[in-house]
């Protein structure tokens, strides 16, 4: 077997280069250049680690804006979607239980990751009345906050209009205090 020695030697050398040196060097450069991102973009309020700005979290209280439904209940150890197909009776039953006339689609559908941090601006606006009532605040104030928190497309071109639920709720808390 003339091919045995090159096969085993190259595999060993490449494992060291690609499996150890490459990720470790990249980790070193990343932590020096991008300390925040490389550590998972943590959100710290006071001295409390609240979560990651990239990862959605569950909100159920009426005084907070709610994220999209999640197949994994916003548990990052169980990322993924419902994987229900378009003619699934389970999917249709689930949506029927939540649907009200004119409700934005993202308010009744689970995301692909189960960790979607964003909702559509329409979805946020549809929750304004509930949040305002629970907080005893005028709807106009809450609506203005949603509008201020709505991110538009980058350079008017890239991405989709969206509202970051955690950022919006943090702004909401800041408004109350």
């Amino acid at each position: 077997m003339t091919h045995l020695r090159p096969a085993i030697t190259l595999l060993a050398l490449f494992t060291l280069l690609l499996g150890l040196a490459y990720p470790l060097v990249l980790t070193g450069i990343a932590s020096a250049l991008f300390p925040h991102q490389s550590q998972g973009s943590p959100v710290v309020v006071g001295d409390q680690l609240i979560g990651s700005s990239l990862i959605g979290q569950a909100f159920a209280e009426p005084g907070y804006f709610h994220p999209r439904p999640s197949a994994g209940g916003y548990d990052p150890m169980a990322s993924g979607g419902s994987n229900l197909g378009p003619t699934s009776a389970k999917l249709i039953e689930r949506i029927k239980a939540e649907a009200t006339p004119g409700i934005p689609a993202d308010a009744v559908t689970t995301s692909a990751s189960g960790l979607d941090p964003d909702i559509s601006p329409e979805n946020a606006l549809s929750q304004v009345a509930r949040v305002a009532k629970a907080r005893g605040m005028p709807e106009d104030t809450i609506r203005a906050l949603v509008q201020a928190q709505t991110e538009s497309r980058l350079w008017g071109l890239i991405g989709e209009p969206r509202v970051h639920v955690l950022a919006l709720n943090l702004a909401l808390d800041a408004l109350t205090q």
Partner: protein
Amino acid sequence: MSINGWLQIAVTLALVLAVVLPLGRFMAALFTGERTFLHPILSHVERGFYDAAGIDPAQEQGWTSYAMAMLAFSAAGFAALYAILRLQGVLPLNPMGLPGVAPDLAFNTAVSFLTNTNWQAYSGEVTLSPLSQMAGLAVQNFLSAATGIALAMAVTRAFARSGASGLGNFWVDMTRATLYILLPLSIVVGLAFVALGVPQTLGGAMDANTLEGASQVIPLGPLASQEAIKQLGTNGGGYFNANSAHPFENPSALSNILAIWAMLAISAALPITFGRMVGSERQGWALLSAMAVLLIGGVALVYWAETAGNPIITALGVDPSLGNMEGKEIRFGQAMSALFVAVTTGLSCGAVNAMHDSLTPLGGLVPLLLIQLGEVLPGGVGSGLYGMVVFCVLAVFVAGLMVGRTPEFLGKKIEAREIRLAVLAVLILPLVILGFTALAATLPAALSSLNNQGPHGLSELLYAYSSAAGNNGSAFAGLNANTPWFNTTLGIAMMLGRFAYVLPVLAIAGSLASKTRVEASSGTFPTTSLLFVGLLVGVILILGGLQFFPALALGPIVEHVLMHASATF
């Protein structure tokens, strides 16, 4: 569909097109042995590797020797990866204390990463330690991709050379593909991913207390380094279960563009490499045009079907303006989800930024069909190019039949031996996919894994075997594939899809390399013309696609009709 959506798609594809020429020419220079701008840094490493492994880089290998070297390297890779997965529990760098992987899952996973499929029957976050991810999976991400590029170069030389016995040297091609192409690009793309928010750390997990006071454990890891090669090597195996839909793997619309760019760049540049090495860059553009026509057609169908949405859900009063949002992320939107769906299956990548299982029936038909067409649009790194060359051989044969002349491609006469081997290669895919799907559809042990009933259930089975045999790795992920039946049969399908396909292709290459190149005459069918591009598209659709039509009719097509009749299962 919106103008903005199409503009985002156009911008992304334009960014790919911008690198096709320089990258294609760079690879052509590299694989013909010229010095490149990276040689001053990397040629010492390259020479050191050859010395340590006892390789003479000038030694030529015939097709059998080239194939044996490739198989030996794959076997060694399988053994090492299987061992790492099984022994994970006692190996270091395991902060969450995860146990060793079960035998059937370790077999399936090792085959999966070795064959550049990256089918995943497990959830990364709760199954694999950082060491298994880095030293096990990521290494094979590089090497299986480099093997694909090497094989494509061997096939290219069959046309570039005249009366030759050798196809190059597998060790040299594989080493150069890794050192000069995949590694430098991965470092650049990896750092760009970190800048855009992808974590890169050896720490285990973040323990957070959410705003409502619940505990949230957020796993971290060396993601960016993995993500870069996962996309560049058209591997597609995600660090986490949600793959490129996970906000850590793909945090924003910009990282999504980078992810799509990285998937496409090398595969789209390889036809230019091919053209340049055979002495006709125009030939490369002709191949790329055929790929682009079919791929963009696929994007358009997914985009249309997904924005049209699901009439059953609209009937419940849900506002249809966002389209079908089940299994999709807000930050990507319909256009850039559709582009990702088509690209990841036109390639043999298999990363997903939307859940394919929840696509509308026609939206889900597209990725299924693109895999079944043989993933040549533009296909996995390397594997797409040699798959396309097989279709070219068949296309000139069909053209030859119509005009009654001996077919030629790039000055090489295509004769009975080559056609027999080419047909053998293109029959592997339908044989494996339809055979295993039919078998699974009759077995209660397989059917109990389904997440959806009715025609969608058949689509789940068909997708699993298509993905495995096509070495794609994406899934209709509702299917619970982590069972001994699926781990074993999908593992076998992956091996057949890679090795049983590539051996006849290498045999064609060996036979063509030895033929002398004849000059084009007035009777030669020009293979850079628009007519040839059209013929090639037709051959891909008819030879690649038609045999799957009955199965597709019973799955996604009948589901589409039933969805409009409001039927549920």
